[in-house]
């Protein structure tokens, strides 16, 4: 697009009108085909983002016109709102529990499926299914019923309802996410199949056992895929909402134990009608996710291994 934007030299432009118009036409056609995307991105993403940035500097109750308050929302968030910090801590705890568990499970299942000769397709779909269902509210509600007191888990394990215990509720939320390990699993599976069999053969000849092969061949060869999954799942985990919302009936309870960041954001915006404050929270979240991703990229230099580097 940028190249066509550059005005052609005057000499060439004056050559013929016939040469210019097809180019214009082509450009026009490009815009026509691009328009759904451009329109979508502008109306559905850029504009709302701009509005939300503006709102974050206002006091807006959804009903009356926004009132400019400068940085007050941000100041209040960082200095006067203990519940805000509680939601930050809850989210971090959640990320630290859910992401490694989910990735470990996804990798374990992918390894098991890789060597499988028969029924691979069936198991792959079976393990992937929860990822398709899991995002839905209904499954989260079933989850709530299963972990409620008097629910299935209570009957089987006699541990009482997890979702009603402040110490356990967040774990129930994390478990719902971990269970949806299908997407990273499929990516791992694809990654595993890319590893050349010769490497394993060579390792075996050198006397490496299965564990040694895993550590010295699989992990380094898989590290780009591992990194990709880690970044993606971390970003998603920071934005967890549906399971926490469903399990706590929208309240983040019991005793704020499942009040994750986005749930508190929702609470401020739509329950307490402080849309300005909620917008400010959203921008801080965006910034934090950006920062965490940047840190992950920075650390990746020391542990992610690309085959092309070796050849260089």
């Amino acid at each position, binding site marked *: 697009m940028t190249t066509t934007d550059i005005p052609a030299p005057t000499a060439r432009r004056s050559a013929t009108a016939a040469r210019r118009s097809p180019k214009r036409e082509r450009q026009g056609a490009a815009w026509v085909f691009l328009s759904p995307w451009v329109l979508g991105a502008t109306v559905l993403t850029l504009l709302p983002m701009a509005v939300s940035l503006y709102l974050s500097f206002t006091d807006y109750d*959804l*009903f009356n016109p926004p009132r400019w308050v400068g940085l007050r929302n941000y100041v209040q968030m960082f200095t006067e709102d203990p519940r805000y910090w509680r939601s930050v801590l809850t989210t971090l705890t959640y990320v630290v529990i859910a992401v490694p568990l989910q990735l470990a499970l996804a990798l374990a299942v992918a390894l098991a499926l890789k060597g499988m000769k028969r029924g691979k397709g069936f198991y792959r779909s079976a393990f992937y299914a929860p990822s398709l269902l899991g995002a839905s509210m209904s499954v989260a509600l079933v989850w709530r019923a299963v972990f409620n007191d008097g629910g299935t888990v209570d009957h089987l394990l006699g541990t009482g309802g997890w979702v*009603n215990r*402040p110490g356990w509720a967040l774990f129930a939320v994390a478990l719902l996410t971990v269970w949806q390990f299908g997407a990273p699993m499929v990516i791992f599976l694809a990654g595993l199949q890319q590893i050349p069999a010769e490497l394993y053969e060579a390792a075996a000849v050198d006397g490496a056992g299965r564990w040694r092969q895993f550590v010295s061949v699989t992990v380094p060869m898989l590290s780009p895929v591992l990194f990709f999954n880690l970044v993606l799942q971390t970003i998603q985990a920071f934005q967890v909402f549906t399971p926490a919302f469903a399990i706590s009936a929208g309240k983040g309870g019991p005793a*704020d134990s499942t009040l994750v960041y986005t749930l508190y954001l929702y609470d401020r915006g*739509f*329950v307490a*009608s*402080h849309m300005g404050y909620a917008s400010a929270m959203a921008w801080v979240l965006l910034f934090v996710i950006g920062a965490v991703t940047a840190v992950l990229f920075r650390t990746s230099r020391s542990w992610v291994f690309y085959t092309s580097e070796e050849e260089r």
Partner: protein
Amino acid sequence: MPGHRTKGFCATAAALALCAVLAGCGGSGESAGGGKIVLRYTWWGNPDRAARTEKAVALFEQRHPDIRVQTSFSGYDAYKQKLATQAAGGDPPDVMQLDYRQIDQYASGGVLLDLGRQQRVLRTAGIDPGLLATGRVRGAQYAVPQGRGTETVAYDVQAWRRSGVPLPGRSWAWDQWADAMRALARKTGKPGGTDPGQSEDAFEVWLRGQGKSLYTKDRRLGFTAADLARWWTFTDRLRRQGAVSPAEQTTQLDGSVENTPLGRGKAASDANWDAPASGFQALVKGGVALAPMPSGADGTPGQYFKPSMFLGIGAHTSHPAEAAQLIDFLVDDSDAAKILGATRGIPVNEAIRREIGPSLTGFDKTIADYQASLEGTLKDPPHAPPSGDNALQTTFQRDYDQVSYERMSPRRAAENYVTEAKAELRS
């Protein structure tokens, strides 16, 4: 391979085309009714109320063949959140059920239509003037009260009788109530009732029993952190003694009777509003009776007659006259009143109240009798709560969670609440 691709492309194209067609249908809600005017009417409640509302709406549609009413309902908490989202998006339903706490915020936010403009269709002359005034904000009528309700202690008659604890009489003080809860817990092995500590409504009754109020006339907090700390200390002690429900059960409350300890068969009583208590019938096999809320030590009653819920119209509805017709039907039509009974409280239209009064049966009669027994003994209702209260109701529950899960002392939780409430009321 190219063959594959073509097939896939065709399938995708077909799917896209289908989506476009479906979206086209979905988008034009007006024409979906087959040329009829479509009104969206939303409310909160329980299945009992749903069955009766559907029946009343069907009668309305029968009388107005050109109007179709789409109803939807949910539990109170979910409804509150959904309505706020719709209102914020500029798409509130045509006719909506509202709570006392929502009127001020929604009216001053321009969400509600001034009903004064629909006077020709919507008759308000039959409604008790005092009750009607509760739907007025800055001189304009934004909502019409639909019923009159009051709080009550609903209890499992059989469980209570079997325990040998004397049944509640016509009045009791909080201390007597607490004794009864303890005695019930001892005799039945289950808590006597729901922990009232999480309920701002119950706290208000307790507060009024001491001559105080939730809010002052100038929309400020009417009590101190010390008052709230005393209330929470009182309920927290009862919870520790097992006289009222444990935190794990209390935290499941979401405004629906199904999720109360009484509704789940885990306690013998529940403090609730009288109209939704009808939902207990289907859940409590031993039968449900109503007792008054406890009063202050000197007998000062804390409970009051409250407009139980309101009906309002979305400010930008394209069918204001028809929406007003529906409200008029629900509030002022005697056939509708017979179907609805006391499911939203006792009717506010006095002529209708007199007319259907004697014909009430079952739990409707229980509610009417209960209200009649309180007539003349209660004090005036408080002013409509200020806007911020809508959010504070949830904050109240949350802060008490911290107490009942023993993560904070009643004193500290109360201070937290008062700090947040003051900030909320200022903004």
